[in-house]
């Protein structure tokens, strides 16, 4: 084997070893290394988030889940406002306790918009029912006004540690 080929082989094997070590010790992900597990767990329920513009709505917030046909307010499209919908979805679903820091983190995503809008962040849950149909529910989570925030009463809140 020529020297460049031997060197290339060692680099390949070395990279594979580092790759394996990093993904094995970091739950399959250490950019740019990955085991690419996306969509591997099929059939599981999912969670996403949408935002509704409820500016001017005089009724108080109803904290119960609704279907898409009964959503409050109007759509608040995230893309034109520079908010990544995946970031928001993960923020909402992965927050275990809505501490002041988490609430402020959520508000910071909409900092420029709250002066003109009152927003309702809703978690969207989807799952397959026994009849193999997809059921989607929208659950109000956080109500954002210019100078106040209301978190759904069923969500755990607490102080920053």
């Amino acid at each position: 084997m020529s020297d460049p080929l031997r060197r290339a082989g060692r680099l390949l094997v070395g990279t594979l070893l580092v790759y394996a070590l990093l993904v094995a010790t970091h739950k399959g992900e250490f950019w740019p290394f990955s085991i690419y597990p996306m969509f591997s767990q099929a059939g599981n329920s999912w969670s996403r988030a949408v935002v509704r513009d409820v500016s001017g709505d005089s009724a108080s917030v109803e904290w119960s889940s609704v279907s898409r046909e009964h959503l409050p307010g109007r759509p608040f499209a995230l893309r034109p406002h520079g908010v990544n919908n995946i970031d928001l979805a993960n923020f909402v679903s992965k927050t275990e306790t809505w501490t002041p820091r988490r609430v402020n983190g959520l508000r910071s995503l909409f900092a420029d918009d709250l002066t003109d809008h009152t927003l309702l962040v809703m978690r969207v849950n989807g799952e397959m029912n026994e009849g193999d149909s997809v059921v989607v529910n929208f659950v109000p989570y956080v109500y954002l006004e210019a100078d106040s925030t209301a978190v759904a009463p069923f969500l755990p809140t607490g102080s920053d540690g």
Partner: protein
Amino acid sequence: MTRFLHQLFGFHVTDTRGERLFFYAFELFVAACTLKYAWSWAAHVQQLGDVVLPLGIAQYIDVSVFFESWIAYGAAGLLTASVVLGALRWWRYGYVAALLLLHLLFAARYSQGEIPHSSNVLGMTLLGLALALPAFDAERLRRRFTIGFTYFFIGLGYTSSAVCKLVATGPQWVDGHHLQLWVHEKSIDVFAATGSFNFTFAQEMVLEYYWIATLFLIIGLVTESLAISMWWPRLRIPTVLAVLGLHAGIYLTMRIVFAITTLELILLALPWACLVTRVLNGTSSSTDEECPLPHFRAAPTTEPPVHADPGAPASA
């Protein structure tokens, strides 16, 4: 092993002007996309307020410091300088520095819970360049190593994805109901991003006909499973084209676009170097001598002679 490395890297195959020009374009593409990611991520972290899910290096250092504008933009600026120095061959560790800085910016940008894979292919290619420049003196060897390294890890990545699916769910992964559930999930993503809710024609077909949904998943899983075929030059064109087809199917059913990955696959799927060589030579002949395809041609059955001075710079 030796035969496999010969086929993967093609160090012994004759260099052509078309291959050199193709690689200049390929490296320019990688550099440009690296800068695009760096500056867009640096800009995005300005609106972040808290680390939700630390990834990579963020598990060991506090990446929220990048949420301060000057630090993120400073990192992007340093990265830009590193890429330029590496591309101009003024600093052989330029791409190493760029890769490390890009990892930091990735960890800061994707600290909100999402674990994206849109930049992994480019990241592995950048790693290939980062290893090639310090390891080899000859440009010909650097080119061949980078391309072979890229094919190896792209193929490995897609096949790994198939293995993950079979391990996590088993053969029943291809059940069309699973795709129907994902289509609804992605429709909510579009609804959240745009404010409008609708299904594409392909999505409606998947939702209406279970067998179409199942067929999509079967084709996708088989394509991923066979992706490591691109390790062998004879199979590269059909394999990479099949992977491109996979991404087309993902876009039609899930409306997920991996733009930069797709562009890189297009660069790797087709014999661009051969086309350039033909244009430069002014011939339409398809003989191997006039249109060598080292990246797509199988290695000879006997080991080729060793070069007298493998470290000597090749003629550019």
